[in-house]
């Protein structure tokens, strides 16, 4: 694996994996919110978001509108960068390394190689080692997570089913990832080769999981979080932070709901507190039954 790190004459190395993963560590226990305008970004920051994801349409609207979903207009990303002091992330299409190059040139803090946008390559994800900016990628299972890590992702998130306000798919993905990690810690050294083959993942990463009992990078949850209790649920299932896409700005009172999800994420084991912040929040986003969907975004990527 080659790493696109850069050493300057001052003895400072930028773009190392430690530095990429380090920012993911700083976001733990936090809420990353999708925003489409500078005003929404400010609402998110005021509510305690640890970062914002700048995009042109939230997943619920992408789903409704159809067509090809692409990287956002740089002007819109720069506007959001100017509006807030917290990290700003942006999405590139799966395999679209030129969009990622543009996002790196804009100095976004994290790139999400995202199934929410229309994939640009049917066989290859972006070689993320070739970049100095860190990447987060979605995964539905452990094999997918480890393939993305082997390509250089410094953070993994569940895919869930974006734009539905329905948590069921994210729960499936988290349980699958965490469940297989548990099983791998019980496997003997010979069985690890079978796991690597079954998962389609590098043996080195499987051996590392057997030893540490965790993914080599932070595991966050995305896809379908709409309430404070949803955040509490996925954190109790082992997610270390949450992405909320359509769930905030498609609800009746985004500011209050955002704040409530932030507090529930911090105090996720305190049911009395989750009850308190859930009270009188107004309508959540309407949401969609998974069986009624014509397209499953989580099936994009491989």
């Amino acid at each position: 694996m080659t790493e696109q790190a850069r050493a300057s004459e001052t003895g400072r190395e930028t773009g190392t994996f430690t530095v990429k993963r380090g920012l993911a560590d700083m976001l733990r226990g936090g809420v990353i919110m999708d925003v489409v305008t500078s005003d929404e970004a400010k609402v998110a920051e005021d509510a305690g978001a640890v970062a914002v994801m700048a995009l042109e349409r939230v997943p619920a609207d992408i789903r409704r509108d159809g067509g090809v979903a692409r990287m956002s207009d740089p002007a819109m990303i720069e506007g959001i960068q100017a509006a807030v002091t917290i990290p700003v992330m942006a999405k590139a299409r799966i395999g679209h390394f030129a969009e990622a190059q543009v996002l790196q040139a804009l100095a976004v803090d994290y790139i999400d190689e995202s199934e929410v946008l229309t994939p640009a390559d049917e066989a290859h994800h972006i070689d993320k080692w070739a970049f100095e900016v860190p990447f987060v990628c979605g995964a539905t299972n452990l094999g997918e997570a480890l393939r993305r890590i082997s390509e250089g992702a410094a953070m993994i998130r569940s895919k869930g089913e974006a734009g539905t306000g329905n948590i069921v798919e994210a729960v499936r993905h988290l349980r699958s990832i965490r469940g297989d990690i548990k099983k791998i810690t019980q496997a003997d050294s010979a069985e690890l080769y079978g796991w690597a083959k079954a998962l389609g993942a590098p043996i080195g990463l499987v051996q590392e999981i057997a030893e540490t009992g965790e993914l080599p990078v932070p595991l966050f949850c995305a896809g379908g979080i709409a309430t404070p209790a949803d955040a509490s649920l996925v954190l109790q299932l082992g997610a270390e932070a949450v992405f909320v896409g359509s769930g905030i700005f498609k609800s009746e009172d985004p500011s209050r709901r955002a704040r409530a999800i932030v507090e529930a994420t911090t105090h996720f084991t305190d049911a009395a507190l989750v009850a308190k912040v859930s009270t009188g929040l107004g309508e959540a986003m309407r949401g969609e039954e998974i069986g009624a969907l014509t397209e499953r975004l989580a099936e994009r990527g491989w």
Partner: protein
Amino acid sequence: MTVGVLALQGDFAKHLDAFAELGVEAVAVRRPVELDALCGLVLPGGESTTLSLLLDSSGLTEPLAEHLRAGLAVFGTCAGLVLLAEEILDGRPDQRAFGVLGVTVRRNGYGRQLASFETELDAAALDASLSGDPGGPLPAVFIRAPRIETVGPGVEVLARLVGPGGEDGDVVAVREKNILAAAFHPELTADRRMHRLFLEMAGE
């Protein structure tokens, strides 16, 4: 008495791991009542705007300010340094800080994530404050780090960046009375000198 790590948001788990490596069982702190049993508290890295909001909503701001005045040993890293500083530049106007450490810091003073870096520090002053043999240069990871721009009287400088010609660079670790702070993340490297110094300050 135990050492606590503020666990509202950020990389608190990395600090808990660092103390475990040193054979110290540290506890995660999320509620005011949990402050009372502590001999020391870490304010970890994370987002300082989020942390100040959560300190307020969790009812921790006032009790923690009281403990700080009473001399509780506190160790702030990155965002934790911002929360302790007397003056914050480029922060949010409503951003809360305890104002107990005589330094001025600039939030994200080294730039965005692309400018985050690893390096080795001149830590001679840190070694002089610690018992045992000197450990040489201190590996340090800076993530969207705050920059310490001025250091007041009474603030002891523990580590600095090294300039291109080997000259003294920015101050990046300081101590003032019961307060220890670093612009970088000692919890993300294997070198435990900063945590050891903090445990000595906390009387562990």
